[in-house]
């Protein structure tokens, strides 16, 4: 039992280090864990990732472990992507849907062994996972608290790891993972992340979390390593076009009002749907949608001006055709970028639309009708993200 004078909010295995780094004490609740929104200033943290290395504590991310002879088949039925060919030590991004083909969540699947997988998710969904296990020989464990994890992102991240003695880390391909010994145990490093940059995520037992943090910050001292919070991460992920569950879509199980959830096609994630595999959740509905057409199109917008089109209505002529879900002025790409969901017929690349943006300066609200163009992809997509061996910055 938790005594009445103690907080019920959980602390991550890195908490002591986060606490020390968090100069402005700007905390928020991430799935029950105390998590920093910012440590110093959002801009500084943003640029740490784009120019040096930023470290984001992702320990609160929901992590499930799947073992047993049917683990692979189970996951292949759960998610829309065909992961039957996912090799050991590889990672795949995917979404999973309910029977209506509506996205419940997105996340990554790590294949740790022959019959051993980890799923990282935005939302807790153990009930759904357990329901889905009927008929499969699979064991499912919520290991969120058993695995400490950090996102280590930015051009110098590879060099930091090399300096830590993780020889050959530069050869790790995107969506690959590998293990290195660390203080008598081991650390798992995957070349994955949520910033669209060269970067890694590390997975380690909680007991070694602080030691790893210390060793890494020591090694990265001269490479501008810095802890970053969720506000900077939001700018980073927006700039590189990554969707945020709960922001860019409402997880189907959390949506209360009918019609508020979205299908993978409506989120621009049709490439994650494979109809060439055995039955999977949402297959029938998605097949129907593919034949009959979607309600919405997900678009990237290049917005004129420098005012972020946050929560803007989108017009085609005088007709309101959609809304913006994420928007940011992107410092590196030097672009005013937004994600929007619009009526399907306005979703083609090159389509000209108008964003109705409201902004406030010293109590004065101003409305701008900013022209925007549907563009092909995200505005930040540097070669160093994919380059293998990773470049030494």
């Amino acid at each position, binding site marked *: 039992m938790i005594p009445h004078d103690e907080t019920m909010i959980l602390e991550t295995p890195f908490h002591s280090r986060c606490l020390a780094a968090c100069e402005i004490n700007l905390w928020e609740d991430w799935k029950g864990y105390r998590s920093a929104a910012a440590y110093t200033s959002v801009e500084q943290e943003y640029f740490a990732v784009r120019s040096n290395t930023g470290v984001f504590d992702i320990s609160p991310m929901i992590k499930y472990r799947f073992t047993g002879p049917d683990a692979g088949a189970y996951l292949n039925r759960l998610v829309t992507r065909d992961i039957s060919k996912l090799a050991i030590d590889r990672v795949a991004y995917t979404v999973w849907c309910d029977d209506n083909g509506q996205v419940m969540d997105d996340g990554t699947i790590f294949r740790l062994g022959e019959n051993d997988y980890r799923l990282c998710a935005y939302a807790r969904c153990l009930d759904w996972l357990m329901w*889905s296990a009927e008929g499969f020989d699979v064991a499912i464990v919520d290991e969120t608290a058993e695995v400490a994890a950090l996102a280590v992102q930015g051009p110098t991240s590879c060099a930091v790891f090399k300096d830590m003695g993780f020889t050959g880390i530069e050869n790790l391909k995107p969506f690959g993972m590998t293990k290195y010994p660390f203080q008598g145990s081991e650390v798992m490093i995957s070349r994955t992340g949520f910033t669209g940059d060269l970067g890694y995520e590390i997975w380690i037992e909680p007991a070694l979390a602080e030691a790893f943090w210390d060793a890494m910050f020591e090694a990265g001292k001269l490479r501008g390593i810095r802890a970053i919070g969720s506000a900077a991460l939001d700018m980073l992920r927006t700039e590189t076009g990554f969707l945020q569950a709960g922001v860019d879509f409402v997880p189907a199980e959390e949506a209360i009002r009918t019609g508020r959830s979205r299908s993978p096609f409506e989120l621009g994630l049709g490439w994650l749907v494979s109809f060439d595999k055995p039955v999977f959740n949402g297959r029938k509905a998605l097949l129907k949608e593919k034949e009959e057409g979607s309600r919405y199109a997900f678009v990237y917008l290049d917005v004129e001006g420098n005012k972020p089109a946050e929560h803007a209505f989108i017009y085609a002529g005088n007709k309101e055709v959609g809304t913006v879900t994420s928007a940011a002025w992107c410092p590196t790409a030097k672009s005013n970028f937004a994600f929007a969901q619009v009526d399907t017929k306005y979703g083609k690349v090159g389509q000209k639309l108008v964003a109705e943006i409201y902004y406030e300066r010293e109590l004065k609200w101003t409305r701008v009708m900013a022209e925007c163009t549907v563009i092909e992809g995200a505005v930040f997509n540097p070669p160093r993200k994919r380059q293998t061996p990773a470049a030494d910055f």
Partner: protein
Amino acid sequence: MINSDKNYDAIVVGGGHNGLVCASYLAKSGKSVLVVEANDSLGGASSTREFFHQFSVSACAQWLFQLNPQVASDLNLYGNGLELAVRDLDTIALAEDGNHLTISGNTLSGVGVSDKDQQAFVAFNKQMLKFCKLLAGAFNRRAPKVVESNLTDRLTLAKLGLGMKLLGKTDMSDLMRLALINIYDVMEENFDNELLKGAISLDSLLGSHMGPRSPNTVYGYLYRRMGDVYGFNGPSVVKGGMGTVGKAMGNAAKAVGVDIETGIKVGKINVDVDRATGVTLSDGRVINADIVVSNADPKSTFNTLVGLANIETGVARRVKTMRMKGDAAKLHLALDSLPLFTGLSDAQLGQRLVIAPTMNYVESAFNACKYGEYSQAPAMDISLATVHDASLAPAGKHVMSVIVQYAPYELDGGWTDEHKENFKQLVIDRLSDFAPDLKQKILHSELLTPVDLEEQFHIHGGHWHHGEISLDQILMMRPFPGGSQYGTSVDGLYLCSAGNHPGGGVMGLAGHNAAKEIIKRGKSA
């Protein structure tokens, strides 16, 4: 027999009565149909079995009282061998002291039956019949969907709604009120006679996991009384036992060209991603067809035949949460001669006898079951079919068949031989309280627990309705919400068992409705 030269349009998994009804209608519409039945005889839970040398008994269902007349006539069942040894029997509610109550249609007779109860009973029956007639309008067609309803569905709903309005103000508000309460309260409102209340309450819950105070029992009672709309005025005894219904349906099916293979189990319903392609028999033979109709209960269909891994989670979850755990056991006795029941003449022994002396007796019997125990004083529904049909036993000998309520499917410690024997003796002891010389007449006895019923009739949970008959599992919620009017999430796979609308009992409408739906959807299904 399977004709290997034929390309079957449809394969019906299970030659239970609904499967045979469905197959017959499909064949009549011009489809070539194969029925595969695991047991050697047809009819499913409508079965006759020799349980002792030369003694046969209706092994699961023991009365015929709900058979839909349209189905009977379309399939010419009476021309195909179905014969009633006797119909419209009375129900005699037994009292330990011999002062029994006889319920004969609208008439009550027995010691201490008050005029007030008699009048109330007539009024009660009248009202129940009105409600049943209303339900009948929704029983012989597919249940409407609530969402995405099309014109047919809207008409069914409108008909139900209009029917309710036409009941008149009093009856309509009564229906809406009664449907949601329980039979105990309804009985208390209407009658004083304990035996009457006990007997009616037993009728409201036979086969289910409910006591008189459980919600849904009023619907259970109405469901049972549907027979009154279908021309029955009490239970009938089928000549040759209930297996004759299966035989007659088998004959009817063969007469319209259905091929029937018995004694072989369907091991698997074959599915290609999300379309049924046929079945694999337990001996490995594969038979292909565009349409597979499962007369197995919904749980067995998806758990075992299709495999939960081959359907989407949402459906798997609904299959899992469907309630279908049977509480009814069957006792079969081979008797040297007719036993003597205190206060009953030999002629009366041929009526339907029930042991449910008070509603509290039944409720107490249910209490044990809630906690995984069998009733120490169970309620019973007794049939001595040989009084009307000598063919079931050697000359002068008799068989007694008893539905025993309650024996939980999941008994604490499981149905070991010891538990079974103890329970059997307990039931026989209890019967002997009413028929003191019973034990001396027993040549052989057999108890079938819900686990045995599951095994012998391939019914998950041993629940003879293939799923609890309760408001959350009827109409568009049967077998489960999102169930698609006999269709399933697997294209070409249909369900036709009692687990579907309108439900169980030897009625034949689930099979009838399923066939109509399959025919309507045509090849596109």
